[in-house]
């Protein structure tokens, strides 16, 4: 291992046992019966959990990491990206010695601190002061070190007034601030960070990002940073690893890896789901919605819905009477994954709709020229009025996923949780 390499990973693999699936029982009786009958089976199953061999090909073995190889130079800030389940967290857990690799080897030169979570070991009964010491010690700081840094930690957190109050009386924001303040004052040579920036409000996030910049730029520290936030990855890291299904598919300069990742990511599977059963519907049923489909401009059904793409929503209806479009009024309210309304598509909002004649009476199409939604899961509530009476309404009639895409052609992917669900087409000039 040459002197300027901080982390050297060779042939690293990690397997887990999955398939510890409990059989479901309908009654307490059958549950107890099978439980009594099968202690031996239970024993074998639980024992198997810890029994992973190096060349395991059993169907219940899951290789979370396969043959990963990379080096991290001293002072380098390395980003790790990949979809959920790609193996990012497992990699960090192996590097921070929480779990042992099944195969392969890691050599680390320098003191490591890992932040897979902020506030590990925070105890609600203890005061802020006591928790700073406990959490600091868990992260590997010595008491002496904490005594020296204590005032800075408290100042950074901004909870001076409550430092002797039990943490259970804190707001969740205060807890996170205090926890991050402890973490930010770690002074290791190698820092491993997993998505901790996803917590806290925007102002605090900026503060943390600033602190991280300071860490990596100033002290020549080696930082490994996992995030789904491509803006943070691009802002902080110079080199990136891209993991997919446990394998390292690409590594290199951040901007090129991020664009590779975004291109792949946009091809995520479409998870459209229609829920048109009668249970959650109201209305007199004169006209009813029969089906909804997402089509592209050519009328072909879409498998993936991406931000910024033109989308045509087809709504099929059925009725015993001949449907007269002039008497029809359809509202579709789009909700985000938090069940907050994002916007409504309505026939009433289109001044031309009621002028159209010769419309195929049992099918409506709603055209969206450029889908202004950020990556998230969405659902649609439908209200269909016919002759001014509620004819059909469906709560969460359709669920669909919008995949992130390079909407602005800048590599900056809007994130719903951070930037909001709506993407504005906009431009800037100096005036």
């Amino acid at each position: 291992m040459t002197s300027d390499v901080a982390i050297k990973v060779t042939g690293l693999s990690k397997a887990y046992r999955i398939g510890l699936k409990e059989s479901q029982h309908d009654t307490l009786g059958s549950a107890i019966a099978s439980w009594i009958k099968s202690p031996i089976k239970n024993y074998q199953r639980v024992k198997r959990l810890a029994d992973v061999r190096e060349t395991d090909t059993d169907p219940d073995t899951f290789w979370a990491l396969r043959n990963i190889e990379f080096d991290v130079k001293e002072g380098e800030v390395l980003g790790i990206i990949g979809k959920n389940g790609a193996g990012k967290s497992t990699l960090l857990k192996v590097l921070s010695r929480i779990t042992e690799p099944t195969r392969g080897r890691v050599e680390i030169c320098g003191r490591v601190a890992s932040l897979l979570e902020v506030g590990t070991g925070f105890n609600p009964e203890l005061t802020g002061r006591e928790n700073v010491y406990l959490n600091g010690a868990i992260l590997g700081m010595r008491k002496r070190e904490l005594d020296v840094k204590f005032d800075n930690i408290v100042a950074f957190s901004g909870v001076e007034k409550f430092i002797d109050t039990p943490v259970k009386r804190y707001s969740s924001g205060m807890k996170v601030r205090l926890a991050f303040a402890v973490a930010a004052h770690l002074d290791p040579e190698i820092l491993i960070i997993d998505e901790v920036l996803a917590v806290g409000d925007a102002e605090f996030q900026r503060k943390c990002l600033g602190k991280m910049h300071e860490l990596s730029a100033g002290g020549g520290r080696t930082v490994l940073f996992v995030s789904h936030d491509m803006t943070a990855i691009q802002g902080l890291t110079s080199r990136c690893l891209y993991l997919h299904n446990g394998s390292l598919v690409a590594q290199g300069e951040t901007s090129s890896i991020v664009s590779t990742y975004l291109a792949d990511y946009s091809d995520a599977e479409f998870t459209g789901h229609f829920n048109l059963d009668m249970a959650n519907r109201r209305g007199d049923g004169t006209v009813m919605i029969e089906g909804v489909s997402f089509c592209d401009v050519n009328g072909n059904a879409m498998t993936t819905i991406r931000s910024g793409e033109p989308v045509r929503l087809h709504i099929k209806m059925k009725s015993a009477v001949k449907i007269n479009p002039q008497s029809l009024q359809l509202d579709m309210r789009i909700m985000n994954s938090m069940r907050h309304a994002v916007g409504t598509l309505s026939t009433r909002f289109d001044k031309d709709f009621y002028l159209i004649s010769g419309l195929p009476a049992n099918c409506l199409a709603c055209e969206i020229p450029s889908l202004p939604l950020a990556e998230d899961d969405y659902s649609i509530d439908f209200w269909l009025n016919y002759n001014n009476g509620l004819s059909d309404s469906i709560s969460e009639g359709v669920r669909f996923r919008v995949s992130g895409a390079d909407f602005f052609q800048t590599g900056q992917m809007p994130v719903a949780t951070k930037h909001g669900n709506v993407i504005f087409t906009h431009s800037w000039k100096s005036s």
Partner: protein
Amino acid sequence: MEKPRIVIERRRGLGRYQFSELVRYRDLLYFMVLRDITVLYKQSVLGLAWAFINPIVSVLIFSVVFGTLAGVPSDGIPYPIFSCAAILPWNYFANTLNASGTSLITNTSIFTKVYFPRLIIPLVPVFSKFVDLLISFLLLVALMFYYECYPTVKLLALPVLVLLMMMATAGLGMWLSALAIQYRDVKFGLTFVVPLMMYAAPVVFPASLILEKFGEIFFYAYHLYPMVGVIEGFRAAVIPQQVFVWPAIAMSGCGAAALFTIGLMVFRKLESRFADVA
């Protein structure tokens, strides 16, 4: 400053335990012990008094049920002090074992997120529960003066007995915690096995009864159960007319050392998989 070099690989066999690392993390042990002590009596009205109430009630019940009603012999010593000298180390052993055995389960959220020597986790109760023992020791002191068992030079044996007691408890605690994280059965087993173990130890009866009924060989073999030597030793330390049977206590010392070694080895062997099976 010399940078430490760490190699992460799948460990084969037991390897060498990094005691130096444990020493480096001693502050964490300290803060976790402090956490346990601080949190235990938070938001309770009687607070530390609970450390007394528990043994007082046990001494009362044992004195009435075993001392008076059942007429269990007590080597001619007043039953309250006879049982109190046994209940204190026993309560320590039982409480620590329950806490230590389930310690990995209750601290799962910590050790699956941060690396530190896992051995600290089952060791925390070994120290935090000792504070309870120290507090309740005042009860024994009060009884000593009440029954005119004034302190003698024999009290000096207590640190040795305490060490023995801690070693045995720590050994079992490490062993059970390592098993419990994978097999939760241990957790349920503890709740009824520990009270049973009390009747196997000379808490309500004197060890001399064993000597009398089963002979000398069995008496010494019996002392391999470390709590036997600890309890009899505690009695001899505080009650003037009781004598130390040193060879028997040495047997208990062997038992404690064996438990500690086995506990440490089992913990070490299973340690690497804790995060995967938790």
